[in-house]
C-alpha cells in the first residue's frame, strides 16, 4: 500500500493506493489518525484502493470516530468497487459519507 497526504482548499486529502490489508493497515491507521488531528475536514481518496480487508475498514471506522469526537469532518471519496463491496458487506456504506469524487467533496467544503 502507498499513500499520499495533501492539503487542498483547507481540507486534508488522504489518498490510499493498493492493498489495505493486515500488513499495511497499521500504516493506514496511523496516517488517517494523524490527518484527523489536523482539525481540518479529512477526505479519503479511495479510487486506487485495489483491496481492503476488515483491518483496513477498522482503521477507517476508528478515524471516523476520532473525527466525530473532535467535531471535524471525515468522508470517503471516489470509493473503488473493491472497497465499496467490503463497506457494503460491513454495512458501513451508510455510516460513512461517501462522495463521488474528491472534487465533489472539496466543492462542498467551499460552499
Amino acid at each position, binding site marked *: 500500500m502507498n499513500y499520499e497526504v495533501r492539503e487542498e482548499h483547507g481540507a486534508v486529502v488522504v489518498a490510499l493506493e493498493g*492493498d489495505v*490489508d*493486515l*500488513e499495511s493497515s497499521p500504516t493506514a491507521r496511523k496516517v488517517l489518525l494523524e490527518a484527523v488531528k489536523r482539525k481540518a475536514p479529512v477526505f479519503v481518496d479511495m479510487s486506487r484502493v485495489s*483491496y481492503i*480487508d*476488515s*483491518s483496513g*475498514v*477498522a*482503521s477507517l*471506522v*476508528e478515524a471516523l470516530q476520532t473525527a466525530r469526537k473532535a467535531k471535524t469532518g471525515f468522508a470517503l471519496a471516489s470509493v473503488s468497487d*473493491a472497497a465499496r*463491496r*467490503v463497506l457494503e*458487506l*460491513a*454495512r*458501513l456504506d451508510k*455510516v460513512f459519507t461517501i462522495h463521488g469524487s474528491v472534487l465533489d467533496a472539496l466543492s462542498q467544503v467551499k460552499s
Partner: protein
Amino acid sequence: MNDLSLTAPALTAADGAVEVTDHLELLAVMGRDFASTLDIDATILKALEHIIRHLHAEGGAVFLLEDEGRTLHCTSCVGATDITGLKLNSDQGIVGRSVQENRGEIVRDVAKDPNFNHTVDEKTGFTTRSILCAPMSVKDERIGAIELVNKSGGDGLFSQEDLQILEVLSVSAALAILNARMAEALVEQERVRRELELAAEIQRSLLPEAPLDGFPLYGVNVPARKVSGDFYDFFVLADGRICFNLGDVSGKGMNAALLMAKTASIFRCLGKTIPEPGRLMSRVNAEVCETATRGMFVTMVGGVLDPRTGRVVLANAGHEPPLVRAADGTFTAIAAEAPPLGIAPPLDPDDTYPETELWLNDETLYIFTDGVTEGYLSDGGTLESSGLQRLLNDYSGLPVRQRLDKVVAVLNRGDNALRDDLTVLAVEDGRIWAATAATDAGPAAEEVPDRNGEELLVLEVPARADRLKLVRNAVSETATLCGCDESVARDMVIAVDEACQNVIRHAYGSTGEGSLVLEIRRGDGEIVFFLRDFANTIDVEAVRPRDLDDIRPGGLGTHFMRAVMDEVAFQPPPQGGGNLLKMTKRIA
C-alpha cells in the same frame, strides 16, 4: 401364739397386699405409659406424678446423669418447688450419694444428715424434712435417680417400705429411659445411614462413566467404607486429548469424602481450560490451599494423554509413584517431585508443578492409591508394589477391565473389611482407539470423504501478514480459472483472506510462526476451500460474527466470511492437531 405369730405376718402381708396391688397397678400403668410413647420426658413426668401421689410425697424430682456421669441434671420435677434444670455434681447431695453407691437412701430427718445440701432450701424457702431417693440403673449402667421429699400426713417422714416401693418403680423407669434412648439412637443411626447412602451416591456420580471398550483409560474405585477419600477422573478435551487424574485425600471419613469432592470438581473445571498438567496442578493446589481444612491434604497424579501419539504429560503431587509397564513386563516408577496439594500455597501464581513426559507405545501406565499396595492379602501380608507388578504381569493378557477387576479381587475378597479405599487407573496406548474414534467422529483430515472433486490448488505459506497478498492472488487466479466472474472472485478472495487473518492473529497469536495450508477443490457446482493450521485448537464457540449494529473497529472478518460464502464450518480437529476450516461457495 402360733396363730398370732402366723397371723401377724399374714396380717402384715394382707395389709401390704392391698398396698402391693396398688403398687402393681401403678407399675402396670407406668409400664404401659412407657411402652406407648417415645417422648420419654413427658412419660417420666407423668410417672413421677403417679409415684408422688402413691407414696404421699409433697414433691419429687427425676435426675439423669449427663456429661459422661459427671453431672446430675434434674429433668422433671413435681411439687411446691420447681428445680427442673438444676445441675449438681454427680457426687453432690443425697441424690449424688444414692447414684454413686447405687442404692436407695432414706433420710428420715435431713437435719441429721451431713450430706444434705441446704442450698436449694435456702434459695427457695422450702423446708425439706425427709428425703427418699432411689437410683435408676440397669445392670451396670447408671442412669440417674428419683428423689421424693417430705411425706405428707403423719410424722412427715418416709418409711423403709416407701423406699422399697420407690426402688421397684425406679427400675421400671430406668428400663423405660434406656429403651427410649436406644430407640432414639437407632433412629439417628438410620438417618446417618441414609445420609451416607446419599453421599456415596453423589460421590459415585463424580467418577467418570464406564468408557466404551477400547477407550485408553479405565479405572476402578472400591471404597473401604460407604464414602471414599479416593477418586479418579478422565475427560476428553476439545482437541481430542484426554485429561485424567487419580487422587487420595488424607483420612477416610466424611470430611475426606467432602475434600475429595471439592478437589475432583476443581480439577475437572480447571482441567478443561488448562491442558498443561504442571500448571493445572499448581492452580488446583492454590484453590485447595485457599479453603483447606487444617491438616488435610490430597496426593494426586494429574496428566494429559494424546491418544493419537501416545504422549503423556504427568505431574505428581506427593502421590504413590505410578508404574509404567513395558511390553516385556518390566516396570518403571515415576516418583513424586512436588508436595501434596493443600499443604503449601503457591508463592507465585504462575508456579507450575514439575512435569514428566512419557510415550505409551505398547506401554501401560498404572496409577493407584496406597490402599492397593498396602492392601492385605489372604495370608495376612500386604500386596506391596512388587505384588502389584506381579499381578499386572500375570493378567497382562486380559483386557484392561478384567485385568483391574482381577487385581482388586485379590484384595477385596469379602472375608475382611478393606483396610483402605482401593483405586486403580490404567492408561493405555490409545493410538488404535484414536484412529477408530477419528473415523467415527467424522472425516479425519487426511481422508475426508467430501474431499472429492478436482483439486485446484494446495498452497502452504508461512502464517504471516506479508504473505496474504500471495494467497489472495492465488485465490483470485483460481476463481478466474473456474470461470467465476470478477465480483464472485473478489468475494472469495475476501473470505479466504479473512480466514487466513484469523489464523495468523488468533490461532498463532501474531507470532509470525507456523504455517497455513490452503486447499481449493472444485466439486459439483461448488468451490470448496480448506484452510488448515497447526496451532492449538481454538474455541470454535468464541468465533462468532460481530453484531453489525455495534460499529466498532475489529471483529468483522468472521462476518465477511459468512456473508460471502454459502457454508463456513470448522471441521473436527485433524490428526496431528491444529484446526481445519471448510468454506463452500456455490457457483452457477
